[in-house]
């Protein structure tokens, strides 16, 4: 049998290779030791001059996770509109598939084009960092928005919403709709989804305040971010608690499935539903009265703010250090927080009066 020899040979090669390398080498803990030393603060060689005017003709590139995605199209259209306001030149470039490394060749290209600033939503917080470091070394300012990169890859992160704001405002929104009274439930994604659980903790904390004493959280259901499962979980909630006053679903999949169930049930309009969703997905349910109002950050404002943050950096108004202030056109003044974060603000509430102004 000649087929035996390949295996024997392969085993031999493998054994030799392992023997050669098993003694000594670099392990995870070695790297952890190296990096546990405090990292040097990002180079901010020049001091910030808050009164510096925004430079004219700034070239700012928006690099979303993926092009032709309505969310990013909305964000970047407003971002480019911002650059036009301050006399700059904005453009959107990016890959058509949201893969981890596809953004890197775009970053390299933007370095060649000598852009003044890059505004990026990272598909992989680490994979883009080597390229972004090169960009920063070449004098290009980097703003991350929507999805942050590892901190050494950018000057500023424009955060769309804080977990605390998202958690508390969803309770406030529902409380308003049900008159601060009655049983409520939460329809979440999975029991171990970090962001969901952070939001839910803030919701519980908000519900502990005296003004919500007549509201009772009876159940947290999990729809696994699966449309069918979320649908049947909603059904189950209303069967177990026929007197339920409202549901909060902090996941776009959950809220859409719950809305679809409610809109075809006798509970429509009686059981209030709110949470995090997108206008395109929930428009029909807002119009038919299933949902009074839901919330999300406004991606247009996010892009607009990121555009101004990029300009402020490139003009030397700010360097990314905590406490620096800059003006962002129609959105007003913003302050850089800890770790170079700029917070967009409270989420936007979408209802039948404003939903047609949004397309994402």
């Amino acid at each position, binding site marked *: 049998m*000649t087929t035996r020899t390949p295996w024997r040979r392969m085993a031999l090669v493998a054994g030799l290779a392992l023997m050669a*390398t098993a003694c000594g080498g670099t392990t995870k803990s070695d790297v952890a030791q190296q990096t546990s030393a405090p990292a040097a603060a990002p180079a901010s060689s020049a001091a910030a001059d808050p009164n510096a005017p925004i430079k004219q003709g700034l070239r700012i590139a928006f690099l979303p996770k993926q092009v032709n995605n309505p969310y990013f199209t909305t964000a970047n259209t407003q971002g480019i509109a911002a650059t036009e306001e301050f006399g700059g030149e904005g453009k959107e470039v990016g890959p058509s598939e949201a893969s981890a490394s596809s953004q890197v060749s775009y970053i390299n*290209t933007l370095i060649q084009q000598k852009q003044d600033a890059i505004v990026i939503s990272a598909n992989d917080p680490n994979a883009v960092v080597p390229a972004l470091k090169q960009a920063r070394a070449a004098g290009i300012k980097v703003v991350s928005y929507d999805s942050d990169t590892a901190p050494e890859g950018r000057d500023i992160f424009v955060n769309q919403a804080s977990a605390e704001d998202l958690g508390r405002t969803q309770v406030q929104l529902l409380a308003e709709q049900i008159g601060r009274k009655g049983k409520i439930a939460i329809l979440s994604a999975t029991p171990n989804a970090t962001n969901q659980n952070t939001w839910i903790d803030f919701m519980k904390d908000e519900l502990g305040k005296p003004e919500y004493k007549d509201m009772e959280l009876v159940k947290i259901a999990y729809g696994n971010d699966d449309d069918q499962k979320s649908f049947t979980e909603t059904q189950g909630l209303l069967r177990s608690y026929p007197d339920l006053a409202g549901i909060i679903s902090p996941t776009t999949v959950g809220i859409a499935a719950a809305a679809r169930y409610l809109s075809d049930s006798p509970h429509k309009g009686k059981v209030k539903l709110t949470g995090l969703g997108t206008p395109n997905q929930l428009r029909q349910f807002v119009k038919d009265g299933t949902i009074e109002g839901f919330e999300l950050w406004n991606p247009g404002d996010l892009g607009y703010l990121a555009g101004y943050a990029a300009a402020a950096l490139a003009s030397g108004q700010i360097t990314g250090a905590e406490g620096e202030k800059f003006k962002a056109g129609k959105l007003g003044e913003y302050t850089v927080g800890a770790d170079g974060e700029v917070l967009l603000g409270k989420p936007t509430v979408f209802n039948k009066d404003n939903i047609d102004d949004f397309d994402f």
Partner: protein
Amino acid sequence: MPRDLVRRWEGLIFVLLVAVVLWASVSVDGFANPSNVSFLLLDTTEIALMALTMTLVVVAAEIDLSVASTLGLSCAVLGWLWNAGLPIEAIMPICLLAGALCGALNGLLVTRLGLPSLAVTIGTFALYRGLAYVILGDQAVADLPSAYTGLATQTLGPIPLVTILVAVLAVVAGTVLHATGVGRSIFALGANEEAAYFSGVRVKRIKFWLFVASGACAALASLVYTFRYASARADNGVGLELAVVAAVLLGGVSIFGGRGTLPGVLMAVLLLGVVRNALILADVANEVLNFVTGLLLVASVLAPNLGAAWRRRSSPQKEGKSVS
């Protein structure tokens, strides 16, 4: 040979490559720039590595569509073992071995069970990628040693070190294919497997080892990929197999086997890389880019066949063996 140069597909690719480089140097801002040349070469590394063995596989009238999934699986193994605390110097050979094993499974299914490689590797394409997700889930392992991540983007002048690695392996693969008995056997079995078998070529053994080499090369590409992006993830390199096959076909390797050259494939890898790089620099939208790449691919499959038909008609007596 030289007098045939213009008539050969490789000659055409060479002319096209030179033309595109000249055009881009003159009219695309930032193209003819040492650091852009490094980026361009870096961006083609993994495709080039996998295209080397893919050339041999396709010349042997087989195909390996599982290369990018093998790359992903090897990345996942790397991330998993790294998290488990193994030294990176031990992990790297294990990854290469894992890649070789992936290739060996493909090879066994094709040679021992006689299954068509297209079907087998579409199956393992899903299998290996699925296994990668089982091993590493959706986490990204990023705390890799900077000595290695630095090496992966290190350049010697404008030439990245990994490009030198590609060049060395290209010489090896080129020598095997074009200057050894094994290479002649690969061409022979690609052109006519039965005839090759009856003239003493060890068809199954050669094919088996080609798949093993293909898997190992994909694993090598995974090391470059992981260190270059400093990120080991199960979804690393999704879709790269199409770029590899595109380069091999554009390089003049017949999809039916038995015909093709390694220099042609390397020029095609470069051509696709240059076109992509230049069009992105010129702010051409991604959709147009994909369209252009697709067009080149269709042309590459169509043109050699049209060319062969034309050659047969113009000089029937010169056409030695029947191809395609």
